[in-house]
């Protein structure tokens, strides 16, 4: 029985069953998960349906607007954000997004006003970057440099920021600083390209070569000081079913960056796949603590607890998972069984 339940639950993180009883919650839940996978077109379709189902729900308008912005449908995005403003009033998130839209439509004055109003308590770390770009585009290179410098401090590995900052220094005649920033940009960009190549090579090797040979190729990605790269390496192993090989990079990644949701979540998934449920529990609890609303982690934690026989702990977690994704019939089925079992006690 538990094996059957496990089989059902394993697929839940990625399966999106089509419920005939579409609701705002269901559409928002599905849309959110699609957004997390960068599937913005599909996500936008879900949010659009959520908006149609309840035009008074500001969450649906907001998420729909964010998707539209990611898709470059800027005018539509603005209309949706303005709708949120009508329904829920101002917020720093709205100011941020409307400021970015102002920047994209060359209205630098408005972009500076909006982004500037939230820059001291920014909703997202790249607020300083967009504000810096707005100032430079408006011709105020000196102020633009100030914000781009702040952005570079916040995201020191983002080559885009160093490129813009280098160009701004160059415009201001600060040639030495320009050269320094552009050198840094070149180094970071090269690293980024090398990483991309390593990922392509590793994925290709895992797809086309025996595992021992693929390991040799993939080992280039094992940077013991880079948690993001280690997590990516583990994901590649995991995608090809080599879960044992994913463990070491992930264990190192969570040591290096204990706040990395991706690392904890993937470590939990890996242990779960290896059927080491006791070891899966802590990483999944850490992942859920970091992102309590992420359905994939919650449902997997529920499944883990269930497999450990801790039904009392599993029940509330799976109930939460069901709330996050009410349209998932499989979770509902497992919950029904658990509740029935609890009642028999």
């Amino acid at each position, binding site marked *: 029985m538990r094996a059957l339940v496990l089989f059902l639950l394993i697929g839940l993180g990625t399966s999106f069953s089509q419920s005939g009883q579409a609701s705002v919650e269901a559409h928002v839940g599905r849309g959110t998960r699609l957004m997390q996978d960068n599937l913005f077109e599909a996500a936008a379709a879900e949010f659009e349906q959520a908006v149609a189902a309840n035009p008074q729900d500001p969450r649906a308008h907001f998420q729909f607007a964010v998707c539209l912005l990611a*898709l*470059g*449908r*800027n*005018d539509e995005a603005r209309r949706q954000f303005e709708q949120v403003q009508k329904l829920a009033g101002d917020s720093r998130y709205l100011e941020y997004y409307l400021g970015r839209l102002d920047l*994209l*439509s*060359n209205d630098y004055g408005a972009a500076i006003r909006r982004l500037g109003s939230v820059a001291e308590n920014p909703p997202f770390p790249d607020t300083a970057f967009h504000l810096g770009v707005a100032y430079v*585009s408006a011709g105020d290179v000196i102020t633009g440099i100030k914000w781009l410098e702040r952005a570079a401090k916040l995201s020191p590995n983002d*080559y*885009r920021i*160093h*490129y*813009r900052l*280098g*160009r701004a220094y*160059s*415009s201001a005649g600060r040639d030495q600083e*320009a050269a320094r920033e*552009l050198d840094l*940009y*070149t180094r970071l*960009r090269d690293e980024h390209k090398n990483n991309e190549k390593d990922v392509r090579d590793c994925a*290709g090797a895992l797809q*086309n070569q025996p595992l021992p040979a693929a390991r040799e190729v993939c080992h280039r990605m094992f940077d013991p000081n880079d948690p993001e790269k280690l997590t990516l390496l583990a994901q590649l192993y995991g995608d090809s079913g080599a879960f044992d090989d994913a463990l070491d990079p992930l264990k190192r990644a969570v040591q290096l960056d204990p706040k990395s949701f991706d690392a904890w979540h993937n470590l939990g998934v890996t242990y779960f796949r290896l059927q080491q449920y006791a070891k899966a529990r802590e990483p999944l609890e850490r992942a859920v603590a970091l992102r309590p609303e992420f359905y994939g982690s919650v449902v997997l934690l529920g499944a883990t607890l269930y497999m450990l026989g801790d039904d009392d702990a599993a029940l509330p977690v799976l109930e939460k998972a069901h709330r996050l994704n009410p349209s998932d019939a499989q979770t509902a089925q497992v919950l029904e069984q658990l509740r029935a079992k609890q009642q028999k006690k």
Partner: protein
Amino acid sequence: MASRGVKPQPRGKLSGLPFHAHFTDVAAHAGLRAPVIYGPPDRMDYILESMGCGVAFLDYDNDGWLDIFLLSGTRREGPVEGATNRLYKNNRDGTFTDVTEKAGLTRQGWACGVTIGDYNNDGFDDIFISGWPQNTLYRNNGDGTFTDVTEKAGLLHAGNRWGTGCTWVDYDRDGRLDLFVSNYLVFDFDKIPPTGKDPRCDYKGVPVNCGPRGLIPERPMLYHNNGDGTFTDVTAHSGVGSVPPGFGLTAVAADLDGDGWQEIYVACDSTPSLLFHNRGDGTFAELGLQSGLAVNEDGSEQAGMGIAIGDFDLDGRLDALKTHFAEDTVALYRNTGHLGFDDVTMRSGLGVETRYVSWGDGIVDLDNDGLPDLFWVTGSVFPEVERKHPEFPHKSPRVLFRNLGNGRFEELLEEAGAAIAEPHASRGVAFGDFDNDGDLDILIMNMNEPPSLLRNDVSGSGHWLKVKLVGTRSNQSAIGAVVTLSYSGHKQAQAVMAASSYLSSGDRRLHFGLGAAEAADLEIAWPNGTRETFKGAPSNHLITIKEGSGIVARERFGS
């Protein structure tokens, strides 16, 4: 070549404004019926077979009518009958006569780029052709014939090279045209695996030809004109050779910062593009990144193919348009002065078009409304892919964006005639007024097909002015001059160039649409640094200006 997976922006509502240019492909009627052979007709096993070549408008016999020079490739398995570079003489009646053999220009091989200019200042345009494995210089004898003087001129290089972009440029302002050649990559049929032999050479899950990534990039070269018919390789001394190797394609030369010295801008494929800033002392500093011309606004390099230079925003500064691979946008760079450029691609509305691999391009006023439009041709390098992915067709339409005059453009899909929407696998493009009727026609190289000659028939009431410059102290072709026209409150700059678009060379008579303006003031910055101004030049004329002698001819043609 590399795609960046960029999705197109949604198209906005069209302006609904009429577009007064209408294009008809008259190539067959004009006698341009021979196909341009370039590799096998239905596949491209090697990158050399996929890159195609340029075309040129020139007036080789100085009769005032544009002739046509078409480059050609060949096939690996051996010579193909009829595959040769071709010179077509303009019969002045809308047709052309193939005079290749008579001119001594018959040649079969892998030609790539062409630059036209009078390197020996004898009054006749000479032809330089880049290619693999050697480049070729033809001296115009002035009697309708040409002589291959490559070896005599000192331009034969050791070993095999794949010369691509090439442009005449008087970089040291001594009045003689020097020569810049970009090189693409180290190519050898026997060392590069063909399609299907290397699993890493894959596009969208389909085996394709390999490169440029994974192959060995090259450096460009610069040759100084000694004034006695010979050239000296100054690549190292000038600083041109000190840049990291890249996959260099189209090269253009123009004075981009208005200091009187010409820069050289090179579109590089999948590596940062290069901007050689002319220091005025015979050396260059590579300032691609500093200027903003090396990469896009996100700091990402693109697959640079073609370059157009023009003044789309009418501020008197030369802007640039660079074409790229499919699933990416072109890049439109606005010149902000002091050798700084802003990438304004997305904010100008060009992000709606990302479907095609894009090549030869122009910033050209096609409808004479006084606002330079954008045009480019397209075509895949992987014909195999469309069988699995019809959304990546081998042959694809031409792309035309109309200038709305507010910093934004709109794509015209059907409004400019069927010849624009017709699909071809095109590469080089040249712009020029072959029928002398006061508008810009378009010559296009199509892979393994006859070329297209798009005759432009402009309606409406837009005026125009053409300017032909003749250098005296400067080089005779006036290559490197910049003409700034003032009309209706606008200020439009254009450069006299020896090459642009994709490996191509266009009409050196500068064509300005004037819209409603019936006259314009001109300022000329000659290549040697001197300036001249002329007031009230009447519209709808071709005026010829000789350096130091003023307007020496006025010719009224067109409607």
